[in-house]
């Protein structure tokens, strides 16, 4: 039997999605799970999701929302696509901060920034910060720098809510160096190592163009990574969002699987499914 390892991220207080994903993982006989944080934020069941993760003792690193809930709101503004989105984010922040139990806050505060298993590194945003987005189209050299500086071979991250596997290979950089007092330039070439970035997507707030929850499975023997999509009862979470008095746009977004920054204000057709 091969050893497989599931990586989940961005659960965002969506209990129905978490239960469906954990059931999917169990069904495959996978018993190693790593979580990349954002247990809370946006969704209606923050305590329930934190308690589920604690019950199952899933190793978890701290997400941007987990950090903000315990530190007060110090997210840099550039993590929001617009001022409107920022205001909605603040409302959701206060809603969650009021409801999460002290005990669960202590748990969120105890989460590490990174987890490491041999040459696999697990972070929420990037090794530099829970708030940095490693988007699939960022400069390949800058992406490689994040993995390499952190001393990893494969970097698992989340935070963008869009799953992807990026392989960076066959890289090299040639340089010419001129120094004071040394008049002939010296030429050098550096061969870059092969590295990977795996984004686990989002369990509780997918934005990859589908409403299905996403996570990834890493085959520890072959190194192969597959992106899994799992259906869950979206309307159940949407109803709970509206009932909780959270911004309805969060329900609208869940029922579409997209990030529409401004058009999202039109939340008239929440969860018609």
């Amino acid at each position, binding site marked *: 039997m091969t050893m497989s390892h599931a990586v989940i991220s961005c659960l965002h207080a969506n209990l129905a999605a978490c239960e469906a994903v954990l059931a999917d993982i169990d069904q495959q006989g996978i018993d190693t799970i790593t979580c990349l944080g954002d247990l809370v934020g946006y969704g209606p069941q923050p305590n329930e999701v934190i308690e589920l993760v604690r019950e199952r003792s899933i190793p978890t690193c701290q997400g941007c929302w987990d950090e903000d809930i315990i530190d007060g709101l110090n997210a840099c503004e550039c993590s929001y696509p617009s001022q409107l989105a920022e205001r909605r984010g603040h409302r959701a922040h206060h809603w969650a901060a009021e409801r999460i139990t002290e005990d669960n806050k202590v748990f969120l505060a105890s989460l590490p920034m990174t987890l490491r298993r041999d040459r696999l590194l697990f972070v929420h945003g990037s090794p530099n910060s829970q708030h940095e987005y490693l988007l*699939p*189209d960022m*400069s*390949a*050299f*800058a*992406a*490689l*720098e994040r993995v*390499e*500086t952190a001393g990893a071979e494969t970097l698992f991250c989340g935070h963008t809510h*869009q*799953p*992807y*596997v*990026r*392989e*960076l*290979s*066959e*890289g*090299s*950089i*040639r*340089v*010419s*160096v*001129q*120094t*004071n*007092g040394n008049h002939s330039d010296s*030429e050098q*070439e*550096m061969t*870059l190592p092969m590295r990977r970035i795996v984004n686990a*997507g989002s369990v509780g707030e997918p934005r*990859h*163009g*589908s409403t299905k929850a*996403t996570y990834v499975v890493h085959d520890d023997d072959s190194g192969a990574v597959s*992106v899994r*999509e799992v259906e869950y009862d979206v309307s159940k979470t949407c109803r709970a969002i509206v009932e909780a008095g959270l911004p309805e746009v969060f329900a609208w977004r869940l029922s579409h699987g997209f990030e529409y920054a401004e058009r999202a204000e039109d939340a008239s057709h929440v969860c018609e499914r």
Partner: protein
Amino acid sequence: MERWALVSGLRGDLDLYEQIQSDLQKRRGTAHLFVLGDMIGPHPKCDALLKRLRQPKRGDLHPHCIYGWLEEQLLSLYGYRGEAKADELQLQSDDSGVQQLRQAVDTEHLNWLASLQFGLIELDCGLIHGSSADVGDELQETTSPLILLDRLTRLDVNRLFTARSGRQFRLQLTGGQIRSRVKDHASEQLHEQPVPKRSVIGVGSGANYTLYDPASDHIEFLSVASRSGASNRIKGFQR
């Protein structure tokens, strides 16, 4: 011809600054003077230097100053940057070093220091004390080209002028590439990204400074003979 003079690490030494100014008078055609941080230091003439930078004398090439590592440390000592302490300075120096720095800078300069920019973008060049990753980032010619390219990418400039390492160098990225394969739930994309032709320039520190001609991309590493020598150094501050 509009050359730039790039200076850093004066550390309170007014005499050194005057020497550089008169060196620049002799070398005609220099239009802009950039002081890339570490203006302050435990030097008896630090206060006089700061006054001179803020109110240049007639005939001085007007200095454009940005803040450096020492300014960052001092401002954090006074609580301008989060908690009132300067951990890195404490580590690299000792309590007497911290005291000397505090005494050398009159508090009337603090607001001015706090108003200075972290970096400047001129044409397609970024001028900064360390890098946009950190004011204490010590970039030099032996730093991994991958890190140098990252620092260029973060500022999105073709040339990055840095001072923190104290080294004088120019490292040009001349070639190379990387292959990127991105697979998501729906598609797979393969693409080759070439290394952009960009460079990182270390401008030196103290008596060592750099002239740059943006029109021709010509660099000259210069040095004025330091009269005050190493007398202004305090324990643990050498680089």
